[in-house]
């Protein structure tokens, strides 16, 4: 019953033109596939990531991400951390005292945990559920310390937007697409 109505002749001039155009379009799509497939060098997907050496701590990571809170979080490279008592990523300049008092902390959300290890060393951890990616600690640590705090797009949160909203406004032009097989830029040496 769903066959075409009999009063439509199956082949007429228009039909012929259509068949030709369809064939041409299919050839075009095939050629397109060929060109597109050969033009791309790496045959894998990409994700967004921050190059820590280009970040200028502008704060857009906290505000421009489509996610609230941002998918960008601070990462701590323990290997290069000095475990300093006076952590310039943790404490504001001239803190009242070197303790966990909120008024002493750089982090607006108190996302950094300070843990005593042994005299005089302290371990600093980021609580990612609290971190908003504002880069305040990153600035303190990188300007005056070893730079073991830096921002990274965390891929368990990131939606991998086709166009990252932070990348557009990043003051340091630090956002790039990186191969999905190496989705992080982990700092292993200070001040790269």
């Amino acid at each position, binding site marked *: *019953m*769903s066959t*075409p*109505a*009999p*009063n*439509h002749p199956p082949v007429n001039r228009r039909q012929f033109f*259509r068949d030709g155009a*369809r064939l041409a379009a299919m050839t075009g*799509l095939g050629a*397109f*596939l060929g*060109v*597109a497939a050969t*033009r*791309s060098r790496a*045959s*894998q*997907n*990409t*994700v967004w990531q921050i190059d820590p050496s280009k970040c*200028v*701590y*502008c*704060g*857009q990571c906290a505000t421009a991400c*489509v*996610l*609230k809170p941002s998918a960008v979080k601070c*990462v701590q*490279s*323990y*290997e*290069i*951390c*000095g*475990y*300093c008592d006076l952590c310039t990523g943790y404490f504001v300049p001239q803190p009242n005292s070197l303790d966990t008092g909120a008024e002493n902390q750089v982090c607006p959300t108190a996302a950094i945990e300070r843990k005593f*290890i*042994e005299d005089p*060393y302290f*371990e600093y*951890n980021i609580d990612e559920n609290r971190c908003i990616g504002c880069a305040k600690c990153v600035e303190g640590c990188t300007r*005056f310390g070893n730079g073991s705090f830096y921002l990274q797009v965390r*891929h*368990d949160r990131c939606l991998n*937007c*086709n*166009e990252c909203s932070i990348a*557009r*406004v990043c*003051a*340091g*032009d630090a956002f790039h697409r990186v191969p*999905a097989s190496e*989705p*992080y830029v982990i700092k292993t*040496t*200070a*001040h790269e």
Partner: protein
Amino acid sequence: MSLRRFGIAAFALLAPLWNGGLALAEQRFPPPEFETGYKMPAITTPAPRGLAMEYVDVAVLVTALGVAAWLVHRKRSRRGLIVLSLFSLVYFGFYRKGCICPIGAPQNVAYGLFNPDYAIPVTALAFFLVPLLFSLFSGRTFCSGVCPHGALQDLVLIKPVKVPLWLEQGLSIVPYIFLGAGVLFAATGAGFVICRFDPFIPLFRMTGSFFILCLAGGFLLTSLFVGRPFCRFLCPYGALLRLGSLVSKWRVRITPDYCTQCRLCEQSCPFGAIREPLVATANPAALAPDRRRLGWLLLLLPVLIAVGAWGGSKLSVPASRLHPTVALAEKYLDPKKPAPTPGSATPETLALTRADENAEAILTTAAAVRRKFDVGGWWFGGWVGLVVGLRLVSLSTRTARADFEPDRGSCYACGRCYLACPNERVRVGLLSPAEAAGLNANRAASRVAASART
């Protein structure tokens, strides 16, 4: 910036460890040697969504397209399409958050073609090509039940109002222009504007800037009363699908069998896609003015393209400002740029500081992008001219058709018109043949009325 530099320099003096020791020890504060057997925690690197899952997306897309084609052409079931739309809305919309979708995929393709450093993801390529391929055979089946944007607009449509034909035809060139702009900005690396101004993705994600949420709300409200406003007047991928379905192998047929010209289907399409029968004129002389107009329009076409290209080239400078590096270079060269002051660093002043430090590289990049836009502007303008010209041409051509038929390009294959047809109702058993015969009498009456009018 000199003040800021000065501030940093002053601090460097106070912190001799900072610069002085760099040659010997790369760290300002040497890593501690722990005595208590402390173990460093490992850095966690949660993996992105696996590539395998992306292939699942492609498989779902292909399956959904196949099901949609079957529902439209074989099963002829509006209800089935509603169920499929709901599934697509949930899967591609709310679960996959609307990304990657075919609507944005032309940008990935354009970006990849013009920037060999960028590998077009396999999924983006598949999402771009597969629905187009389907459109060549089964029309806009992607729109009918697979596209989450279309599904959302279609499902919320409660009271469609008729859009005047002139407005519809005028606005229907916007998707092609938007497509051209999307390709231009993607190819030059300025960004993905189609994604940026997509009104429904913020709804799927329940987040977005104030502006984009207002846009989303506006489109959603409009969708209640105007059938698929985004699809008809903005969607750049729909523009491509429209072209594909113009030559599709199978088309949507309102009647399963033969059209009795009862006109019952006429008002059933909320998208104004159903066209009246149009008999070919027996008298060729009557067509002469139309032919002449068509001839003039065809002559006008190259003129329109040329004018468009010229206009486009004028637009290339402002358009290039959408590229962040060009914008920065301009601001950097602007004598009235804001002077950075210590303590109040804004993203803008920080970017200017960066421009100051890498002025040469940034100005070179900006100049290169400008050159791309110079070329791209001509192409874009020419494209707009072509689109306008072809629209005018298509307005003055006539397609003879014997029955009420959906326009191939404008039909979203939503299936609403099927059950408006009494013959279809007979087929599915909702109407007895006798009742249909009554409608056929109606047809005869309307024919008499029509011939009385002429």
